[in-house]
């Protein structure tokens, strides 16, 4: 734990602020997951974790190790890029499958499929 002593104060304060705000945003996203009423509202909550939380916490980690220079910061960059690419795909597929299931059960809460379309739900990106 001795390496953190070398971190100057001007770097330590933004690191702490980024870390705390990132985890607060993550917590808010998870609270939204509990509080929102319907599935489609809950679909918005994890984007808060991935766009806000991951970005801020990875930035604080990058800042720490860029200043200390005791390891490469490649992993954080890869994690951020990967989260940005994958989250929309996951949420889109989940939304589509939820819509498909609700329609299959003839739920009245979701809009009906337009008439001219085929019966097969197909993955249209």
């Amino acid at each position, binding site marked *: 734990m001795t390496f953190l002593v070398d971190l100057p104060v001007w770097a330590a304060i933004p690191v702490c602020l980024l870390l705390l705000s990132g985890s607060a*945003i993550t917590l*808010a*996203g998870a*609270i*939204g997951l509990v*509080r*929102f*009423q*319907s599935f*489609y*509202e809950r*679909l*918005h*909550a994890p*984007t*808060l974790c*991935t*766009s*806000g939380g991951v970005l801020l916490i990875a930035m604080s980690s990058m800042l720490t190790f860029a200043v200390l220079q005791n390891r*490469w910061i*490649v992993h954080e*960059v*890869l994690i951020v890029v990967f989260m*940005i690419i994958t*989250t*929309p*795909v996951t*949420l*889109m597929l989940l*939304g*589509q499958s939820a*819509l498909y299931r609700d329609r299959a059960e003839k739920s009245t809460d*979701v*809009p009906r*499929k*337009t008439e*001219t*379309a085929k019966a097969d739900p197909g993955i*249209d*990106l």
Partner: protein
Amino acid sequence: MRYWFPYPLLSLLLLGFWLLVNQSVSPGQILLGTILSVSLSWAMVNLEPSKSRLRRPGAALRLAASVIKDIAQSNVAVLGAVLSRRKPPVQSAFVMVELTLRDDNALALLACILTTTPGTAWLEYDRQTRMLLIHVLDTADGKDWQSIVTNRYERLLKEIFE
């Protein structure tokens, strides 16, 4: 050349990713990464992705700037909605939006943008009627989503891809 390297940019990106993950540029890793990236781009040929050209880098930069600004703003807005004391916290709704975009890659990019922004989620796009179904978290502020999608994103995406 085209036969051996069907997607040169994809192969280069995969090689770069491999070297970054391994954190070395030794000849063995470069050889292994090259073999992997070339064989994976052959696998990509079987998926037959639609090709489109990037025309205007300037418009792409403007799009990126406006997307980053929107994501930051809607992060704050959703944060407020989550922590508000009202008893159903938000009034959400399904919104139909008409699209005129044709390019597959542009549509995929639009889907990623709309889903990454915390306030909106892409649900379904119908190719025949060209209607897009999105779910909007907070409709209380009375924004016109058709005009937002058309003016803010679709125009720039058309400039970039078509």
